[in-house]
């Protein structure tokens, strides 16, 4: 039987990526009690960073949003593994942290990180609504434009 969240993903025509392996000596997630801590994800797709650059310099807000959305897809891919394949075990998204590679005068970090927040709410509905911060970073791993990490509660 297909789970409710998997059915919703299908409705949205979203195929979760096979989540990328960490780029260094750490793991994609750690569970402590009912909390899953997910490592920061960058907009990797098919082994490549899809959105490289700096907001306020060489990328539009729309490109930044797309990058954030890809980060969120990678987060959900790892989360599915963390739940043993069953995303219906997700109780709620607690918090996401959004990091935007940007120039010192850039101020639209929230609009960029909405790309991740919107995707999570689209997929998980009310359970997807979360606390959040969005900040500017000087640089991000592999030149990525955006990085997003998250904490979820699972049953």
């Amino acid at each position, binding site marked *: 039987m297909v789970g409710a969240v998997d059915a919703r993903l299908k409705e949205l025509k979203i195929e979760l990526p096979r989540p990328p392996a960490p*780029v*260094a000596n*750490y793991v994609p997630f750690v569970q402590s009690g009912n909390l899953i801590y997910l*490592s920061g994800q960058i907009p990797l797709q098919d082994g490549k960073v899809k959105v490289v650059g700096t907001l306020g310099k060489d990328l539009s807000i729309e490109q930044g949003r797309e990058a954030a959305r890809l980060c969120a897809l990678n987060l959900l891919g790892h989360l599915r593994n963390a739940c043993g394949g069953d995303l219906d075990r997700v109780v709620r998204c607690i918090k996401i942290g959004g990091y935007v590679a940007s120039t010192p005068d850039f101020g639209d970090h929230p609009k960029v990180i909405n790309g991740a927040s919107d995707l999570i709410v689209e997929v998980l509905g009310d359970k997807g609504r979360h606390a959040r911060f969005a900040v500017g970073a000087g640089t991000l791993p592999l030149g990525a434009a955006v990085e997003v990490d998250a904490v979820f509660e699972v049953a």
Partner: protein
Amino acid sequence: MAGRIATRLNELGITLPKLGAPIANYVPYRVTGHLAHISGHGPVGADGRYVTGMVGAGVSPEQATATARIVGLQLLSALSDACSGDLDRVRRCVRLFGLIYCRPDFTAVPAVMNGASNLMVAVFGEAGRHARTTIGARALPMGISVEIDAIFEIA
């Protein structure tokens, strides 16, 4: 009798540094339930002064990796205090968050952060493997090269 982790530290030739006092109105760590949240720590060198400088501008990636390890030792010192001196109470390292003070074109921040990640795995083995986020920062307190905060699960 020396504990398992104390023995391991001894094997690795590690003496934990003295826990420094926070530089402002906060505490080095807080424990809630089984989680110990450790404040962001900076690298205190052998001379008792902070290790400062920008990666890619006077500080090499290798130096910065060694600096990240020093920050890892500060975190362990705070963690030890949180465990009343008994690191055998540590169940796992849940998450590290690393900020690397670097040039705007330096994107190899994951390799720098490995200095801390590798230390956790060396000390705790499998239980040291953690979720992680690393970003490049445009500035850090006092010009330190690396700042890291952490969450550990303790018994």
